């Protein structure tokens, strides 16, 4: 089938493969320098979206990432056709991004601490969550539970993938159920929200972190601004649905600049240690541990050896 690329390169005074204009301060930024600076504008601090490979390279200890389930791909369960059939959109996204879908998951280390990590990439169909994304988040959570290591999900998504209809919607239930089991069994979960985290992703696992972090000025909200402004004839307040708005209203613990994210996660992981064993609702009533929740001062001694063996 013919593959049509959805975007054509923008024309301009500067070749776009070499230079990028900062949408915030208008400065022209040399791409290589921008990449080196983790795609943060050196002048005004604007956070550009980060591709999944750069995100992994930044967050994880070098060479520690082992991707899992890399072979999952989307299918077209509804035979969905809008102006273009869904399989053509998928094929185009694969070509432009080099990814199979909008999320990757695997295990790795952050400052030596082993984690299960799922990272989304907005470049693949707006980071939309279809069955594959939902499945990867769920498998990451289930693996975190099995291995009893913390789960980190870095979200970047416009929401559920419309082309998969209610099957995409059901990914909210699937991922929430998996996150719920983590919480029941005392395995910690950190949600990192990057620009944008909206719709069904924000209304499921992204909102549910034991700790929620967000990147500066990231768009985070339930309804897209277009939907919100269209449904209700109200103009939206400035800063609406930005990371700082969420911090102010109590739904994000910290807004963390990208350069500090890795260290902040490492610091948090020092506290967010998985409880020893099933402390959840299913622990037997006589189990003395259950009343103590996650308190487990010597947990690092017990789990450490086993965690090592998982690595190849």
């Amino acid at each position, binding site marked *: 089938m013919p593959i049509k690329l959805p975007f054509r390169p923008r024309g301009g005074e500067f070749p776009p493969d070499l230079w990028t204009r900062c949408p915030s301060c208008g400065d022209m930024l040399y791409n290589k320098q921008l990449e080196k600076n983790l795609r943060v504008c050196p002048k005004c601090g604007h956070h550009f979206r980060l591709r999944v490979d750069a995100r992994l390279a930044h967050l994880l200890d070098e060479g520690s990432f082992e991707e899992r389930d890399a072979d999952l791909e989307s299918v077209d369960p509804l*035979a969905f056709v*809008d102006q273009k059939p869904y399989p053509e959109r998928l094929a185009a996204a694969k070509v432009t991004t080099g990814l199979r879908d909008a999320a990757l998951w695997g295990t790795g280390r952050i400052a030596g601490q082993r984690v299960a990590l799922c990272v989304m990439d907005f470049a693949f169909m707006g980071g939309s969550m279809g069955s594959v994304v939902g499945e990867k988040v769920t498998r990451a959570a289930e693996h975190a539970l099995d291995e009893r290591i913390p789960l980190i999900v870095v979200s970047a998504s416009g929401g*559920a993938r419309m082309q998969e*209809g209610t099957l995409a919607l059901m990914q909210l239930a*699937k991922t929430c159920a998996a*996150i719920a089991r983590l919480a029941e069994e005392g395995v910690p979960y950190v949600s990192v929200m990057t620009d944008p985290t909206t719709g069904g992703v924000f209304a499921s696992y992204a*909102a549910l972190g034991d700790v929620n972090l967000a990147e500066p000025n990231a768009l985070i909200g339930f309804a897209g601004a277009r939907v919100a402004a269209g449904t*209700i004839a109200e103009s939206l307040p400035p800063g609406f649905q930005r990371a700082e708005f969420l911090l102010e*209203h109590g739904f994000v613990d910290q807004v963390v600049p990208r350069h500090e994210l890795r260290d902040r996660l490492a610091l948090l992981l020092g506290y967010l240690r998985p409880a020893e064993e099933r402390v959840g609702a*299913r622990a037997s009533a006589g189990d003395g541990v259950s009343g103590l929740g996650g308190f487990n001062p010597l947990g690092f001694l017990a789990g450490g050896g086993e965690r090592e063996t998982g690595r190849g």
Partner: protein
Amino acid sequence: MADAPTAPGAATLDARAHAWERVRHARDVKRPHTLELLRLMATDVVELHGDRLFRDDPAIVAGFARLDGRPIVFVGQQKGAETEENIRRNFGMPHPEGYRKGMRLFALAERLGIPVVTFVDTPGAFPGPASEERGVAESIARSITMLTRLRVPVVVVITGEGGSGGALALAAGDVVIALENAIYSVISPEGCASILWRTADAAQEAAVAMRLTAGEQVALGIVDEVVPEPGAGAQDDPAETARRLKPAIVAQLDRLAGFEIDELLDARYARYRAMGAFATAQPTGAPRPERPGIAERLRTLFEIGRITLGGPEPAPLRPQAADETDEPPLREEI
């Protein structure tokens, strides 16, 4: 078409008209909503108010009731029967406090060991600034999460519009029943059309593409059982609608009561765990399956839908399909 609600029209109507008729019925202002249905089929209804955090949300109603003597905790969206009430009830679009009221009742149900029945009928959660400020997405995520782990049986009834996350917040349960003209979708047809077709005028196309009718949702495995509506739709005869719906709910409550709660929770987890369709990538160069023509696939869907609509049976507990999800789902199955 009173007694064979789907058969005569479906074959001759084109898909757009068929889907759009359902959308119109699901949104019909005269359609019986949660409280009307409860009034018609339940006794001893006691409504409880407030989330104990901010305020009472009239778009969600919740409380106790009895179905043939069996106590239930009900939580459902509530639209108005006329304009004034609709404004008060925000057209059935809940704010976060509505979902938090629901969660308060879920917790109470668990503590009392009373099963939960939810009634889903909303265009979606309210998308305005006040709703965002108070964390509507968080409230939806928590409500879904709570339902997936709630230690009492949960029966979901989609009575009208199942609008996206705002509907799912009350719709994660052990079994999902839908009225025949109910719809369930990831986004409103208008919203989908305005994004993918760049004009809300394509809403009818979007309604077809998203497979939002109850029959199609059965084919996708998301709805378990469809209850036929009387006459041209529930709005014509609310009493008869309630008379048909009640035994379906009661049968599910009785069936679910036979399970150990841990067994039920595992089955509930497996139910949602198995939802979704994906493939494991084939080595490059492998031939891709041919796409059957759209007409052919539509026909398949309608066939399946019709069979299901014709004779709904109590849905069995979903098979433990978690292990099967590695298999690429065949389109023909859907």
